[in-house]
């Protein structure tokens, strides 16, 4: 397969001459249908197959212990690149990438480093600055809330989830210092019934906007909003899921995983693939807010968002990504 036959540096030797492309994806143990990065990753390789030719293949992992063999399989089948979604695969990718220096890997939400802490040349570790997206969403929410009470429904307290949260809180602080965000977690990413219960609890406690970062469990949040009817809003994650609650969908803090994967695959196809850590945020237009719903927003909110986008993009504002950064964050008029 293409991966093996190369000789060059930075894994570019894996020439694409060896027949049509194969864009592989290895999911984490949650597998497809997680309403999160696994599904987005699949979208990414499929789009790659469309625009770059070749075919896409998805290998789902049933458990942690299948990551390595699945990656091996993806390599062995001669993939042009192997995309692995989720921090959980970091160790596995590192291990396999070391064993196959000539194959190229795309690792979403994590980076692969060797023992010395130096990142591997044949692994592109993509880190999203979710907090920047959530910041904008927070601004919209902060401006939209009538009760000045906002809710957060998380799946499990993971760093990426926390980045979403803190960014959102910062945005709210920025737009509406008198508003507060109350947080709660489901304990998993699947229990939509509990998600509904939690969202309902938020609404009962007076919140009129809930930010969900709970994967499949988030479905319950939209349903809770729908049962409430107009007047309460949901802020989504990852992609625009407006169809889930058309009347209650405020916006979403989006994260363009497919685009990022496509860009790396493009590079690979052009032989320009480079490993190392890649951090993507507003500046790279890799994250943002769902604009399909902007029609409904007041003009002042919209240009507030635009200004914030500017400020963050140009580095005038650094959005906090952890609780203590948040505590040190002071709103600055952009």
């Amino acid at each position, binding site marked *: 397969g293409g991966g093996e036959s190369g000789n060059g540096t930075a894994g570019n030797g894996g020439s694409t001459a060896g027949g049509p492309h194969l864009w592989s994806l290895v999911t984490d143990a949650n*597998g*497809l*249908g*997680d*309403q999160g990065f696994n*599904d987005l990753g*699949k979208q990414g390789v499929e789009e790659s197959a469309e625009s770059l030719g070749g075919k896409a293949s998805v290998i789902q992992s049933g458990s942690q212990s299948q990551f390595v063999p699945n990656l091996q399989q993806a390599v062995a089948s001669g993939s042009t690149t192997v995309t692995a979604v989720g921090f959980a695969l970091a160790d596995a990718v590192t291990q396999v990438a070391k064993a196959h220096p000539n194959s190229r890997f795309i690792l979403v939400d994590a980076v692969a480093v060797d023992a010395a802490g130096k990142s591997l040349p044949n692994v592109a570790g993509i880190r999203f600055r979710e907090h920047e997206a959530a910041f904008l969403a927070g601004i919209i929410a902060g401006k939209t809330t009538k009760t000045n009470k906002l*809710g957060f429904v998380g799946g499990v*307290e993971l760093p990426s989830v926390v980045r979403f949260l803190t960014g959102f809180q910062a945005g709210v602080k920025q737009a509406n210092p008198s508003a507060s965000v*109350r*947080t*709660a*977690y*489901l*304990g*998993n990413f*699947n*229990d*939509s*019934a*509990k998600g*509904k*219960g*939690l969202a*309902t*609890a*938020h609404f*009962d*406690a*007076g919140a009129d906007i809930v930010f969900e970062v709970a994967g*499949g469990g988030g*479905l*319950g949040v939209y*349903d809770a909003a729908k*049962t409430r009817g107009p007047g309460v809003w949901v802020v989504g994650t990852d992609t625009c899921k407006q169809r889930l609650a058309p009347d209650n969908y405020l916006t979403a803090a989006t994260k363009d995983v497919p685009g990022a994967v496509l860009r790396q695959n493009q590079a690979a196809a052009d032989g320009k693939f480079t490993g190392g850590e890649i951090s993507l945020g507003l500046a790279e237009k890799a994250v943002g807010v769902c604009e399909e719903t902007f029609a409904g927003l007041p003009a002042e909110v919209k240009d507030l968002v635009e200004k914030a986008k500017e400020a963050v993009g140009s580095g005038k504002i650094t959005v906090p990504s952890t609780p203590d950064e948040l505590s040190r964050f002071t709103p600055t008029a952009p």
Partner: protein
Amino acid sequence: MSDVLNLAWVVSAITLATPLILAMLGGLISERSGVINIGLEGQMLVGAFTGVLVSYLTGSAVLGLAAAVGAGVLCGLVFAALTIGIHADQIVAATAVNLVGAGLTAALVPIVWGVDGISPEVARIPAVSVPGLSSLPILGDVFTKLTVLDYAAFGLAVAVWWLLFRTHLGLQLRACGESPEAADTAGVPVRRLRVVAQLCAGGLAALGGASLSLATIGLFVASMSQGRGFLALAALLFGKWRVWPAVAVCLLFSLVDALQLRLQIIESAIPHELLIALPYLLAVLALATFVGRAAAPAAIGRPFTRR
């Protein structure tokens, strides 16, 4: 605190309790007839999926419910064929039901709807406001938020209780669970009754699953039952194989769970992992302190053959 301990809390507790209660009732009938049933989880998923599928195809949630029960009964039949028909080990057979139930439903989602893991929204069981009760002063809006299934759960609890502890059939069923040999010498058709019990159990568990998918959120998510089948089993044993104590356990569980969700919101000091574990902690405490010796049906798990 008042924005936690209010009616809304009770309502969400009841909605969380309904699937538990239904599945538990299924398990109760099964185990009272002397068949261990750890297959509730799988049967719930089958019910949840079938309900959504049929509701999707026909546009009628009621048909969905009916189909779910039918599918559950079918599961029960398979389970019965294995355990009662050919004396397969009850726990192994139930494990098979769980694996196939979870696997098949998840596998069919992309085959049917072309997307992974989640179905589109379908016609669902709506909340009904009970004419008289909904106009009550304080309790009023409780009776506007619950669905037919929530009431059905309690209705069925009464029914199961009546069947098991008042009717002749129930007497015979319990006899099968206490001593199949004795029941047999008394002319009870032990194996036939155990099969019947399995059919009921499957139907009830599936109904519980359907209430999760058709009433609570109106779509199917792969493995959406999230261990509720096992929780129902625990509640059943916790309640010592008696209807009302077991129902009470389900309700308490859901009350604490709903409370826990709300406490997370108002109380940020306590780590949320702890709060999430709260229902289980309390359960263990209760078991350790005041819940005494459990008295299982004497012949539970024991297959019956005529010599």
